[in-house]
């Protein structure tokens, strides 16, 4: 940003914050000061969040349907000998529950893990940390996890809920046949 422009903006911000008169300023300058004042007024308002119980009461107006919960088990992993705790590079895990299957690829990236996954078919959402996102038409999804112990997700479609454990929890159990 050019020096003159930067100084002009700083003067306008100072005028807005100090409540200085805008007399003598050009129209554009007066407008800028006025707009800065409106913005700062909002920023100074304490941010109020509704208590969780209040939010939940409103949410119950359209209640979530009952879901059949399935716990996915690890059936194969490319980490068979080294284990999750010493994993350095990418690895894949395959989970199954009932007739459903999910493949997850864990890739280290900038100190955390990028997890890309695919569940069978369209119509799935995946939930993590209280928020839900829709998988694409082929059942693919992606998220980031701070650690492999923090990579658990819930996949849901219709009345089915598939709980996929974290890679760390899954690796504590031997993979089943086909691993």
């Amino acid at each position, binding site marked *: 940003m050019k020096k003159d422009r930067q100084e002009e903006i700083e003067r306008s911000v100072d005028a807005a914050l100090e409540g200085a008169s805008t007399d003598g300023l050009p129209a554009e300058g007066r407008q800028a000061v006025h707009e800065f004042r409106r913005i700062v007024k*909002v920023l100074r308002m304490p941010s109020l969040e*509704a208590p969780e119980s209040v939010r939940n009461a409103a*949410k119950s107006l359209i209640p979530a349907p009952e879901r059949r919960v399935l716990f996915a088990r690890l059936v194969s992993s490319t980490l068979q000998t080294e284990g999750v705790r010493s994993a350095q590079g990418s690895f894949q895990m395959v989970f199954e529950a009932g007739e459903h299957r999910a493949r997850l690829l864990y890739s280290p990236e900038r100190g955390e893990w990028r997890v890309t996954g695919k569940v069978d078919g369209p119509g799935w959402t995946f939930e993590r940390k209280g928020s*839900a996102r*829709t998988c694409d038409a082929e059942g693919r*999804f*992606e998220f980031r996890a701070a650690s492999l112990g923090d990579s658990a997700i819930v996949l849901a479609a219709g009345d089915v809920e598939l709980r996929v454990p974290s890679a760390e929890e899954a690796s504590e159990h031997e993979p089943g046949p086909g691993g």
Partner: protein
Amino acid sequence: MPASDPFGDLDALLRRCRKGDSRAWSNMVDRFQGMVYSIARRSGLGEEDAADVFQETFVALHRWLDKLESGHAIPKWLAVTASREAMRASRLRKRGPDSLEAADMPLDELLANEERSVEDAALEALEAENVYAALEKLGEPCRSLLTSLFAVEEPSYKDISANLSMPIGSIGPMRARCLDRLRRALAREGVLTGS
């Protein structure tokens, strides 16, 4: 291909709510809970009355889902409805010398004043909602800097420098740049027009 977020678009969110999608409805409540609750509390209501206003507002929205023109109408509709409910709750609380019936003003004038107050409160809440949304989109370091600078306790530049790992001398110029970026972002969206 990464997963898509279906709730970024208010029209899509409204469509899903109309179909009875509980996740979409939950997202709707989460998205506007701050604005609705703030309107109730800033009108002077205590926690219990504010909770009632909150519930009444979302009950009304649930009832009106099929009648709303589009998803884009939702923020203003919610702001006005919450303001009206808050005004009604305040009036009920003030039965007595300050009540509508006892005031020394013609009823139509009282009602007109009340409607103006509702409109003003709604517009203020909408402006705040737009500023917070634009601030979120600004990203770092502006989001953290502006949030810290104008927090209720207004920390010193020294504290901000320590918390944000920013040289003290750069805070003033950065403050101005971030506020200007925020102002221009709001102007592009048509917020902040008029005095």
